[in-house]
């Protein structure tokens, strides 16, 4: 399946791009992260500490063990600092 993957703030800076389309069969967010980390060092660096990251599935805050079935858009970013 094809998934839109978005990066924000320093995650975006480490990956070097704001978004990309990823072809994956990953069942969960965690599996997708493993696939990405295996690709290139910049991904490994961006995803080195999952505790400092948050994930949103189709624009809703979610967890790393959440399933990807039916999800169109995954976003990775550091804790938010709005307000």
């Amino acid at each position, binding site marked *: 399946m094809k998934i839109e993957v978005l990066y*924000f703030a320093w995650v975006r800076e480490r990956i070097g791009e704001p978004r990309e389309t990823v072809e994956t069969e990953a069942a969960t967010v965690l599996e997708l992260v493993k696939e990405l980390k295996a690709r290139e060092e910049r991904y490994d660096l961006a995803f080195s500490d999952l505790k400092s990251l948050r994930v949103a599935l189709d*624009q809703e805050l979610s967890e790393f063990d959440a399933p990807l079935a039916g999800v169109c858009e995954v976003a990775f970013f550091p804790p938010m600092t*709005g*307000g």
Partner: protein
Amino acid sequence: MRITVQSDDFDLAEALREFGKAPNTGATVSFTGLVRDDTCTLEYMEIEHYPGMCEAAIAKIAEEAVQRWSLTDCLVIHRYGQLRPGDQIMMVATAARHRAEAFEAAEFFMDYLKSRAPFWKKEVTRDGADWVAAKDADEDALKRW
């Protein structure tokens, strides 16, 4: 209820002009956040945002606030992009029957916007650029609600 995410500045006065006119409103509270420059080295603040999710996340916070404090109205404007010291970052306004409700709802909004609305702040100073880190206290603040 009005939720706006925009790069342009907003006029607090104009935003409040028609706010809180619903019947049985006894109290309105507004909050405005501005860019501070404590060390006199800040050139600008860059606010990155997640288009679409911002509006959805704020709407979710607003729906809960309206229900919990029986708000008669509420309003959120949040900016993104390059902001200079003194610039307005965002505003929240709440309208309720009693003042305790209006105050509490406004503080609830602020606590949730800080940790649950997808904005990220980067401070660009003469000495370099740094992403503003979320504080443990910000996440802890949610527990009181």
